[in-house]
């Protein structure tokens, strides 16, 4: 940290400057500063949902873009995610207490044989940030675990992540099992991970492949809205 930054006292900034400073702090992965910023905004009477979307999700979206464009790399993304997580843990109980908007429920996990989880965790966090309730099954998930969880949680969305060429075909095993059980159409299936692409998503029968967390949020919102409309007109 430079001396200049040392001098910034977050509580003395007006709202706009504070949010801008939080974008910078998130970008630099400064967890304590993010936690402090969140607390200040709450004390100033900001609704928890507004803090989440405008300060945290806003900042993390910039991180996501710069990662996609090759400006930031894995460690920076991980540090930023960690800082956001700090802020989220303050906001979570408040969000529940204040009845923030509920967009739907998602179950997410990395597939069997694969224990990469950085991207999956990021998607889970950004989905939570967008108002989805997320159940994270962690890594190395067999088909039974996914099926049990989507049923138990009455989820709207199933999300699967794979970073290995050898594990990505397992997504099809899960989708085929859902088809066999006659439950495929009850859920929106989103898939992601660096070696996947749009074509693969189509070929295995997913509703969508999402390149990154921001696309995942937009796609989830659009597909949930469509599902609800169809439900209403049926």
């Amino acid at each position, binding site marked *: 940290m430079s001396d200049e930054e040392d001098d910034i006292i977050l509580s003395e900034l007006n709202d706009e400057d504070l949010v801008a400073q939080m974008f910078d702090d998130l970008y630099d992965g400064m967890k304590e500063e993010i936690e402090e910023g969140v607390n200040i905004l709450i004390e100033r009477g900001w609704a928890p949902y507004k803090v989440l979307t405008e300060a945290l999700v806003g900042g993390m979206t910039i991180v996501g873009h710069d990662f996609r464009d090759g400006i930031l*790399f894995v*460690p920076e993304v991980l540090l930023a995610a960690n800082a956001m997580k700090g802020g989220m843990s303050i906001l979570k109980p408040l969000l529940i207490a204040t009845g923030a908007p509920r967009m739907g429920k998602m179950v997410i996990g990395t597939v069997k*044989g694969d224990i990469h989880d950085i991207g999956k965790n990021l998607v889970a966090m950004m989905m939570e940030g967008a108002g989805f309730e997320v159940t994270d099954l962690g890594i190395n998930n067999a088909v039974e675990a996914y099926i049990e969880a989507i049923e138990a949680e009455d989820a709207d969305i199933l999300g699967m992540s794979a970073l290995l060429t050898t594990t990505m075909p397992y997504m099809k095993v899960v989708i085929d099992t859902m088809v066999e059980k006659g439950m495929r159409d009850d859920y929106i299936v989103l898939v992601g991970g*660096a*070696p996947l692409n749009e074509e693969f998503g189509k070929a295995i029968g997913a509703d969508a492949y999402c390149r990154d967390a921001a696309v995942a949020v937009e796609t989830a919102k659009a597909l949930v809205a469509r599902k609800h409309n169809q439900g209403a007109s049926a």
Partner: protein
Amino acid sequence: MTSDATLTTDGLPPEGRGRVLLIACGALAREIIAVRDGNGWDHLDLQCLPAIYHARPEKIVPAVRAAIEQHRADYDRIFVVYADCGTGGELATACNELGVEMIAGPHCYSFFEGNKAFNALDEVTSFYLTDFLVRQFDAFVWEPLGLSKHPQLRDMYFGNYEKLVYQGQTENPELIEKARECADRLGLKFEYRFTGYGDLTAALRSA
């Protein structure tokens, strides 16, 4: 022999000899040369792309494609010594399209072990190192993961792993010792397994 550092960032240009050009990952240069020279396969020339593409697999397909197009007129045949390496099948598609063969397997850990044997392993929570990666541990693992600056990230990366498996292409006590240190630094148990060159030899024989 070109240094590991050069193989990491720059790769290795072809020598302009032999009828068959191998286009390979820089992390495989020493092993390919050992197999080639050990068998007297003088018809094989070798070009390596920067090994560090390992961490940016989206760069592999365009770079291999460009190398094939640049050199194909000068050789009878080209053989690609890259496994899929996280390209999600796109490298195989590109090779097919250009009428070029490549070594089989998802990654080098698999073909060094032998693809069949690797498939049969149940080692989901193992992290692998090859000879090259042991020598280049800092450049390929420690630094790109930001662990010298941010040691607190270690368990976010490796918290779900149990052991480091060093797959030795050669039997080298110094590398075994270094690999053991790598395991300590990552907080993982250590296992050494001599694999030799695995499926690489057969692939180069057919190239």
